[in-house]
């Protein structure tokens, strides 16, 4: 099972590379694109100041004799500055000495957390599958869990994912068991019961459950006082006396163990301490309720002495009901507080202080993700995509009622919290049996979502642009008069309505109401503009007589010609016809127009028409036009594939559109983020691919090779669910070809010209360069990882010309079609791509080949990192990509680096690979196979 430690050369290379790259350089968490991950400040809580010292891992050092060490050289390496995360992982995995392990784990605490978190899947895999590492890793996990909510949640999910599958297959639970486990939300609360886990995974599940039951939370501070103060609703007449609550605090605090003892959690202690800790919590709870009772008694005795029993009972019941409500709302989307953990700390009141009341830390986020996953499961019950979409929108709207909340979108780090989900922007993606869907969420950035000042208050959800803002009538009338002259050209906007409102406003006794959000609820002290001051309503006191005299809105709005006025109001008896009267009135002095112009404009607007095949062949097919004159949003709406329209809208447009329509759009740090929610698929392999891509990207940045990759963040939630970051602003080649067919075009080059301009324009050249750099990068990736199933639906082009590969479901050792070798070429490279590069003689094509070579050379230099990563992942793994045996797979991977080749040999090799890929018959075959079977062009 264990692979021999790499040879000396590799070790030397590792050290060499380590020398060239100080640990601090390796900031995987800070790529160019997502600042979110880098802002991943790990959400350290208030406790950090007090005890940020490392946990005491010295236990093993004292136990193990010095002689066990391989040599002082290794010890020195481990203690030195050159040790980086990659090496740490390497030695942790390949070295069997307990002392080395403990040293490395200790060192892990020193590394920047994002860089360690990068390897979290590997750490978890080691924890689950390598029993000799479990103990020492558990300590590290516990240490981190007590500090970071995000880490706890990620760890729990990963533990679930890495232990569940293995155990369910081990226990003979079929696919049904797996799917039911994912149906329960994947977060694993309560799902452990049904599983027969192998003993070696028991510890992982146990750790997961401990995390989820908050046993690894930092000790609650001041819990008593806040709880007792909060649990007692101040009686209407007076609030509980401070002295009393203080008294309860002290008594309760005395029940706590000395705080020092609990932080020093050594191995033996940790196991025993847990039940005890649990017990303590219960005790605290009891004392807590007792304390509350005291408070209640005291306060009630001071109430007016009317029926003291009843008063007391009432208070008790009220508090009980409140307590109950807090308990039950979590996860209940109908409550409006589904993502609320009952925290009554100042944080809940927006004072910018992190929660410390001991309410469940993880619950809101877990519930949030769980409800997203549950939704995906429920979507599957519908066959039709429309029904799915409708259901999706409905449930997201419901979800919306529970926002803003202190939850975040996992794929984007945790530097934000979610204020709203624009539910109609969400789309169900194409999949028959699974129902992945894409959501957009509006977020506001913050350091730590848990202490963020969440905007409370449910703003009106009618977009601001659609709300009629009332203005004094005269101005309105003037404006409209100006507009009126060319009213045929541009519409009257909301004028029709505003005009009506305006004239209402001027009526006898109008009351305009304004709602200003209460300062106490949304207590932002920096004087954020309160744009929630929307209101719009007027109440007019109509007297019976006033009606006749009240001018009709249309007349008032448009002009004050006396004749028209009389005409309109004479007919006002049944106000229905007033509009037509007003409209007709000025027909006499109307300007002429030509229907020929109208028709010309119309034909200009609807420039090209889709062929009927695209619009679903419906009866309205002949009416279905491609609408160039319209906003992008409507432009490419397609009956067959509504998600296409959603995805095609440029993100910048979408962003402004949603921001305009959002009640939270005015917030300065408002941002639109997106995620794909997927259930029913194991995303661990995607995660592995993501890690390799990130490594390669980092390697190329380090070696200054201008290759471009776009790793997509993956969050694994349990073994059959997860969230994926979507690539925004992209089209798949499939979509592009479909679109082109509609326009009777047929080449990628034509598409490039259409999107970016003629071939010698700057935009085109820029796009071409991007295309070359990204294609070369993905060629290397596809070659190294043997990524298969490269049909055009899995290859995207972004708005700058970059090519992006998605879906790493088949890689390393697997390919679709029972590994029959459909795709025998090394990577997918077609003549079309070369055409975009300018043909076989063009410089860009040569540049492409050079890039591939340089990329390979750079990757080869750091091959050990990739090998280590993949190797650790393969340990005890049941991922399909290791289905042919991890040792063989690993060896094949290593061979693909061609370590023994000279640079010249490698160049020849790569060139021949490019040539053979270009002329590969299997690529064409696979494409046409996909076209015939799945309709992917």
């Amino acid at each position, binding site marked *: 099972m264990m692979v021999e430690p790499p040879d000396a050369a590799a070790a030397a290379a590792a050290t060499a590379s380590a020398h060239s790259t100080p640990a601090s350089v390796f900031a995987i968490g800070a790529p160019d694109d997502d600042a979110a991950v880098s802002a991943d400040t790990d959400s350290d809580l208030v406790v950090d100041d007090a005890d940020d010292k490392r946990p005491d891992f010295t236990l093993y050092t004292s136990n193990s004799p010095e002689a066990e060490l391989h040599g002082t050289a290794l010890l020195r390496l481990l203690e030195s500055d050159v040790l980086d995360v990659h090496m740490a992982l390497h030695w942790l995995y390949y070295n069997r000495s307990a002392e080395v392990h403990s040293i490395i784990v200790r060192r892990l605490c020193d590394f920047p957390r994002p860089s360690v978190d990068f390897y979290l899947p590997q750490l978890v895999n080691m924890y689950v599958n390598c029993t000799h590492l479990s103990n020492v890793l558990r300590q590290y996990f516990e240490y981190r869990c007590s500090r970071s909510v995000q880490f706890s949640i990620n760890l729990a999910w990963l533990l679930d994912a890495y232990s569940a599958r293995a155990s369910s297959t081990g226990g003979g639970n079929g696919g049904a068991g797996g799917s039911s486990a994912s149906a329960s939300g994947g977060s694993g609360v309560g799902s452990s019961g049904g599983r027969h886990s192998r003993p070696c995974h028991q510890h992982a599940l146990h750790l997961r459950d401990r995390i989820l039951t908050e046993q690894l939370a930092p000790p609650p501070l001041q819990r008593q006082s806040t709880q007792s103060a909060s649990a007692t609703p101040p009686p209407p007449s007076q609030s509980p006396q401070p002295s009393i609550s203080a008294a309860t605090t002290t008594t309760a605090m005395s029940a706590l163990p000395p705080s020092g003892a609990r932080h020093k959690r050594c191995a033996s202690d940790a196991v025993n301490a847990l039940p005890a800790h649990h017990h303590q919590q219960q005790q605290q709870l009891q004392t807590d309720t007792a304390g509350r009772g005291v408070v209640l008694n005291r306060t009630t005795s001071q109430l007016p002495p009317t029926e003291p029993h009843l008063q007391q009972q009432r208070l008790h019941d009220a508090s009980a009901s409140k307590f109950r409500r807090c308990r039950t709302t979590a996860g209940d989307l109908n409550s409006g507080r589904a993502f609320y953990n009952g925290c009554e700390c100042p944080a809940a009141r927006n004072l910018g202080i992190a929660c410390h009341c001991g309410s469940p830390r993880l619950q809101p986020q877990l519930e949030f993700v769980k409800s997203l996953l549950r939704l995906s499961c429920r979507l599957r019950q519908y066959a039709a995509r429309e029904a799915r979409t409708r259901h999706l*929108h409905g*449930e997201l709207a419901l979800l919306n009622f529970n926002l803003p909340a202190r939850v975040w979108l996992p794929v984007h780090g945790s530097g934000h919290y979610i204020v709203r989900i624009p539910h109609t922007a969400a789309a169900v993606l194409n999949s028959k049996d699974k129902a992945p869907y894409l959501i957009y969420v509006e977020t506001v950035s913050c350091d730590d979502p848990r202490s963020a000042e969440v905007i409370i208050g449910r703003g009106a959800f009618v977009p601001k642009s659609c709300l009629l803002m009332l203005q004094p009538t005269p101005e309105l009338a003037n404006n409209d008069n100006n507009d009126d002259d060319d009213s045929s050209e541009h519409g009257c906007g909301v004028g029709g309505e505003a005009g009506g409102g305006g004239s209402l406003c001027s009526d006898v006794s109008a009351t305009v109401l304004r709602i200003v959000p209460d300062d106490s609820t949304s207590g932002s002290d920096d004087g954020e503009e309160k744009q929630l001051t929307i209101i719009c309503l007027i109440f007019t006191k109509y007297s019976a007589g006033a009606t006749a005299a009240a001018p009709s809105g249309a007349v008032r709005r448009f002009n004050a010609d006396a004749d028209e006025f009389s005409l309109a109001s004479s007919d006002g008896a049944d106000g*229905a016809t007033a509009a037509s009267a007003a409209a007709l009135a000025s027909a006499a002095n*109307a300007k002429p127009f*030509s229907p020929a112009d109208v*028709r010309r404009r119309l034909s200009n607007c609807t420039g090209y028409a889709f062929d009927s095949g695209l619009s679903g062949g419906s009866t309205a097919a002949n009416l279905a036009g491609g609408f160039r004159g319209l906003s992008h949003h409507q432009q490419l709406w397609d009956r067959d594939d509504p998600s296409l329209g959603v995805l095609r809208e440029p993100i910048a447009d979408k962003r402004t559109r949603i921001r305009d329509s959002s009640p939270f759009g005015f917030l300065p740090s408002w941002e639109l983020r997106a995620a794909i929610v997927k259930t029913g698929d194991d995303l661990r392999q995607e995660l592995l691919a993501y890690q390799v891509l990130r490594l390669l990207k980092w390697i190329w940045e380090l070696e200054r090779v201008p290759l471009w990759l776009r790793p997509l963040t993956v969050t694994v939630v349990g073994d059959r669910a997860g969230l994926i970051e979507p690539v925004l602003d992209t089209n798949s080649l499939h979509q592009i070809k479909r679109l082109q067919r509609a326009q009777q075009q047929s080449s990628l080059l034509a598409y490039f010209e259409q999107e970016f301009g003629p071939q010698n324009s700057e935009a085109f050249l820029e796009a071409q360069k991007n295309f070359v750099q990204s294609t070369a990068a993905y060629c290397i990736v596809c070659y190294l990882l043997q990524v298969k199933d490269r049909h055009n639906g899995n290859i995207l082009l972004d708005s700058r010309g970059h090519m992006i590969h998605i879906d790493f479901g088949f890689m390393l050792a697997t390919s679709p079609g029972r590994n029959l070798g459909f795709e025998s070429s090394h990577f997918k490279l077609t003549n079309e791509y070369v055409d975009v590069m300018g043909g076989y003689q063009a410089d860009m094509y040569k540049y492409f080949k050079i890039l591939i070579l340089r990329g390979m050379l750079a990757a080869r230099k750091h091959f050990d990192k990739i090998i280590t990563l993949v190797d650790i992942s393969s340990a005890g793994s049941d991922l399909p990509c290791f289905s042919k045996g991890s040792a063989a797979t690993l060896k094949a991977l290593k061979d693909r680096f061609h370590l023994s080749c000279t640079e010249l040999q490698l160049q020849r090799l790569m060139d021949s690979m490019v040539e053979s890929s270009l002329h590969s018959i299997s690529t064409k075959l696979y494409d046409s196979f996909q076209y015939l079977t799945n309709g992917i062009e």
Partner: protein
Amino acid sequence: MHFEANDDLLKGKQRAQSLKVGMKEKVVQLYDRHFSGEDISGGSDSFWNEFFLLRANVRYLQAHFERCAWDELACQKPAIRRLFGHCTAPLQNHPAMGQDAIRQANALQTLASLIRGAFSCPPTAVAAAEAAAVVGGGGVSVNVGDVDEQQMDSQRPNHPNLDLLMPPNDAESIMQDLLHRLACCLSDDVVQLPIKALAINLLVTMATACDLQYNPMLSYLVSSRVFDCCLQLFASTELRREFGDSVCTLLAIMLQAHRHNMVNPCLVKLAVLDDNLVLNGFSYVLSLSLAQYNELYRRKVREPKGLFYSLSNMVGHILVGEEKQLERIEVQDALLLALFEALHVNRSFIATLTYSHTPSAGHQLVVAEQSGPASSVPEPTNLLVVFLEYCSIIMQDTREQSMFNSCKLCFFILTAISEDEYANSLMHDLNMNFRVNLHRLQTRHRAPTLGVDLESAPLACALLDLLVEFCHSHLMRTLPAELYQSALLILHRLLCYQKRTEIRLHYNWHHLWSALFTSARYALSCYQKQPVGTAEPQFLRSLLSLVSSVCLLLNFFVTYGDTFLPTCEVYDLLFYELIRMKSLFEDASQLSLSIISSDPDHPLREAAMQLDRSLVNIRSIIQHFSPRIDEWAEAQGQRSLTQDQVLSVVRSNYESLTLRLYSQLDCFTSFRESIPNENAYFRQLTRKIVTSVRKDAFDASQQLQAKLKDLSSL
């Protein structure tokens, strides 16, 4: 119905028996003694506490009040007042547990009975005058038909019926106290559901005690906290399932109070409501009830329709006139009214129109027997979809006045929707497609279609379909011109929105035009068929203005077609159709000219001139193209042309045509403006609702009583 009749019978029997045997229920004995002026408490402090442990006999109390004439009641006034006063006492114990709950339940029932009873008896004129004089607020004659609106306020404290229940000087405080307790009862989580049900029933009873305008309790009700508490009920899944309908009814009535003469605080509260959960709950309750109605209707339509069935049905219909009434499913005007007010007043409510109500929101059609081919999963639906289907059902039969009124209300709601910018944007959102099951009336040449191959489209298409269907199916002798007019208004609003936002719907506009032509033609023929002297000018005028509205809409297409029509072929088609309908427009033109030229004082002169003006463009289109088409036909030597041929002529002759630009085509009067004109309508509608709700409230109260009996202890 049957149940009730049976019960009445039973009751009668019981009463007969009890009289015979001289055995009465204890509480009935106490009632009798109390009303006869005796002090039943016997000086014991705890008597009343125990009294309310006895089950209130709603029926007996009701019978008692019905038995008594006004004068008798006037004599019993002190006793009634005392009982009323004692009833409020148990409500103070709060929250109610155990025995308290029983006391509360009985007290609430007694209160409801007292109020119902006290208001069931019309006071004599003298009594009314006396009651008014007690406070000295100027003699108000209450039972005179129309009350002066200015005097409504002063009438408040001294209503003779209210006077029976409480001393007029304390009425204010008593009522406020009572309402406060009821509000607490509604808002407190601890209060059990049956008690809440009783409280709501009491509130409904109060609100419907008598006609809305004369109801003295309504003004207390409206200004109390009750309205907020009712709204909050919508936020809870359980409560809204339990009480949704009755609360909606209550809200609708409260919103109608003082609609026309003073500001209603409820309206203000509803207007500023921005709690999404509440709004969503509200919309959810409405859509659930409407969906239930739709489901019942669907089931009714699905019933076997054989020859035998129809025969027996006919016989049955003749024999039991009322059977039909029972069979017809009650139209829930109160809910419609609530929907209308919510839409009309609250801008945020609009957004909930298209919120899908998914099963996970606890939305389940609770139609008693889940029969038929139950689809595995109920498709998510939303209020607007349900409402459109509901409209299509309501529209089928507008002959009866009540149905006509409901239909009119539906049109009001649609107008309010189509006028709203946001609602329009939702309806035109291409990302939100729905299948709307629009029902079509079965006619001789058309079988009822039910949900077959429905196409999923944006909601605006469904609305257009609905309007088209309406236009086609109501061509009857007394053309409901008013409804037609509002249908055209809705259409106009939709078109204006499309024009403004340049949205091009995938809609078969052809259908719409033919509907417009048909209605115009029918209106014209209606006009011509009217006997010359006898027809009322109002109707004739409405016919004329209907035709001119149609013309205006056609003008809209001609003028702004470039902004919302999908292709230029459709635009050509419009001209083709206009030319095809040549005779229609010529008739209209002749008619208008004949009226204008006949008599300068003709009552329809104004309308005719309007029509004439709206015809200008269409006339010139026809005059422009017809000769050219004829020429072309002659040149080709063909007598009849195909559509394509005509279209090609049209296409080649656009250039030389010039039309007039109606400058205000794309503007409309705000619907809000016209609401005050409809006061009479709303008053009538509300009166009808109040009457039916009052009856329902009594039934409900009896049912609750039966339920309380079942519960051995609350």
